[in-house]
């Protein structure tokens, strides 16, 4: 089953795939002079946090980092609750129209949500006239939008996890006199925890990465910007501060990387579960 060629190809591919990430972190800690040198070296002997300091001091990056984190965590919280109860209903309850709902869930994943920026911009604008917290330049609409757009896939994925819990357990719990509420939240919920972890990571990333809606809906408030917009500010057409851009990119990537590595196992099995559906 195994061969040296496969090992070699694996390692080579791993190196090639890792180069951009390595280069990002390396450039973030290189002194400015080395970055501006026309013959870049793949190492540095004088690592410095200057670039990070420029990013954090000059551009209020910490604030934007916090905004992004708050939005992403609210999306994750909402996504866990909403996708769990929906997945339970779709796998464990008997009702007419279930198949129709499942197909609609698939179709919902195919809608190019980017096209919806135009109507959503006007909807949020008018919502702001009634409830200012849900208007333009506020974070609340971003939470709702990112939550809604990550929900169809989260429900779809979680369905596989709920379906994997044996039905006999439903029966046993009912015979033991557990109410539905108790059973769903005390028994089922902990059992599908690995699936919830996987879906929440994907919802987190969805929200953390969102550039388009953040850019469109928070167009003038400098306080409520999120990370992707903050990075855009650094990129000037003529003279780039690559050190700062790479430091900002690193800061944006690290939380997602940590999440990914922590839940890697669940993520892989979760995706496989969703794919097998």
């Amino acid at each position, binding site marked *: 089953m*195994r*061969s040296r060629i*496969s090992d070699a*190809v*694996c*390692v080579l591919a*791993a*190196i090639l*795939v890792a180069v*951009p*990430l390595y*280069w*990002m972190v390396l450039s973030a800690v290189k002194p400015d002079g080395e*970055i501006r040198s*026309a*013959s870049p070296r793949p190492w540095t002997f004088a690592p410095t946090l200057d670039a990070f300091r420029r990013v954090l001091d000059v551009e209020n990056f910490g604030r934007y980092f916090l905004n992004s984190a708050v939005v992403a965590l609210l999306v994750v919280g909402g996504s866990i609750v*909403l996708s769990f*109860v*929906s997945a339970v*209903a779709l796998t*464990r*309850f*008997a*009702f007419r129209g279930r198949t129709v*709902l499942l197909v609609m869930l698939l179709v*919902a*994943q*195919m*809608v*190019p949500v*980017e*096209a919806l*920026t*135009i*109507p*959503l911009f006007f*909807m949020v604008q008018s919502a702001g006239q009634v409830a200012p917290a849900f208007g333009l330049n506020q974070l609340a609409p971003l939470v*709702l939008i990112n939550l*809604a757009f990550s*929900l169809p896939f989260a429900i779809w994925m979680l369905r596989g996890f709920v379906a994997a819990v044996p*039905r*006999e357990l439903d*029966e*046993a719990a*009912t015979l033991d006199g557990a109410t539905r509420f108790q059973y769903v939240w005390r028994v089922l919920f902990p*059992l599908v925890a*690995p699936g919830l972890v996987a879906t929440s990571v994907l919802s987190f990333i969805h929200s953390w990465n969102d550039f*388009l809606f953040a850019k*469109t809906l928070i167009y003038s408030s400098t306080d409520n910007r999120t*990370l992707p917009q903050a990075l855009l500010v650094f*990129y000037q057409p003529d003279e780039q501060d*690559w050190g700062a851009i790479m430091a900002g*990119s*690193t800061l944006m*990537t690290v939380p*997602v*990387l940590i999440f990914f590595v922590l839940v890697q196992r669940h993520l*892989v099995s979760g*995706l496989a579960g969703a*794919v097998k559906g």
Partner: protein
Amino acid sequence: MTLVGERRRAADVAVRRPKTAVHLGDGRAAFRYLLPAGVLLLAVLAYPLYQLVQISLYEYNQPQASGAAPLRFLGLDNYAELVADPKFWDVLAATVVFAAVCVIGSLVVGTALAVVASRARPVPRMLLFLAALGAWATPAMAGSYVWLFLFDADLGLVNEVLSGIGFSGMEGHAWLYDRYSTFAVVAAEIIWCSFPFVMVTMYAGIKGIPAEVVDAAQLDGASWWRIATRIILPMLRPLIVIATIQSIIWDFKVFTQIYVMTNGGGVAGRNLVLNVYAYQKAFAGEEYGMGAAIGVVMTVLLLMITVLYLRAQRKAGWAP
């Protein structure tokens, strides 16, 4: 671990009971459980979709948006104007070719590496998976900047390496000056961050193939190439379909990478794709009706591609 324990206990309990399907709830309960997600999806997905179609039927520019001028119903005039515009066809063609390159690229790279990984020892395989997870996890924004920096004309690593190994003409080569090489750099970034999904999915699929099947073929003297193309790939077909559809959906509507790496669609919009085109029309050109029309075209195209693909697959013997 608790999961396994619970399962076993549940199985013991169930042994003596007749297997009748127990449902936890009925239609009324389902309604209550599905209500929150349903309301949110109706408000933020379904209603805006309806609004998108509405807006595309009106003359809806800045004066109308600010309420200074009355809305004027145009019917399909926005679409007629779009169809008559050579720029639209150019962007559409670019979008289709660009998405196709990205989809094929990530499928080929992801599947090939999954097959290789399934034959490699644990340590090299783990290295590859770690690197791939890293690429996967990198936010589109950060990835775009890193690749821009790698391909920077004067300070980039790529030109340095190329001129270092003898291509001296590549020193100072401006990758992002030409239309096609710009698209190529963006496509490379997209393949870099989207092949891991394909690889992980395919790897899980390969692991699901019974070992006896591969062993039997090996005993019969089949070469690895034959085993890969005649046994593994056909057995992976359902997964390949899903990965393909997912990739089409993702790559057809790519926005961030194009917007960031070509600075909003390139000089004179030569690196536009439909999504960015719609956005620019609406929010830079303040032609919201026209932008919405492009959005509707994109939605319809995406749904058509998906339906056609599913139908082709069903004809070939695999029903979703």
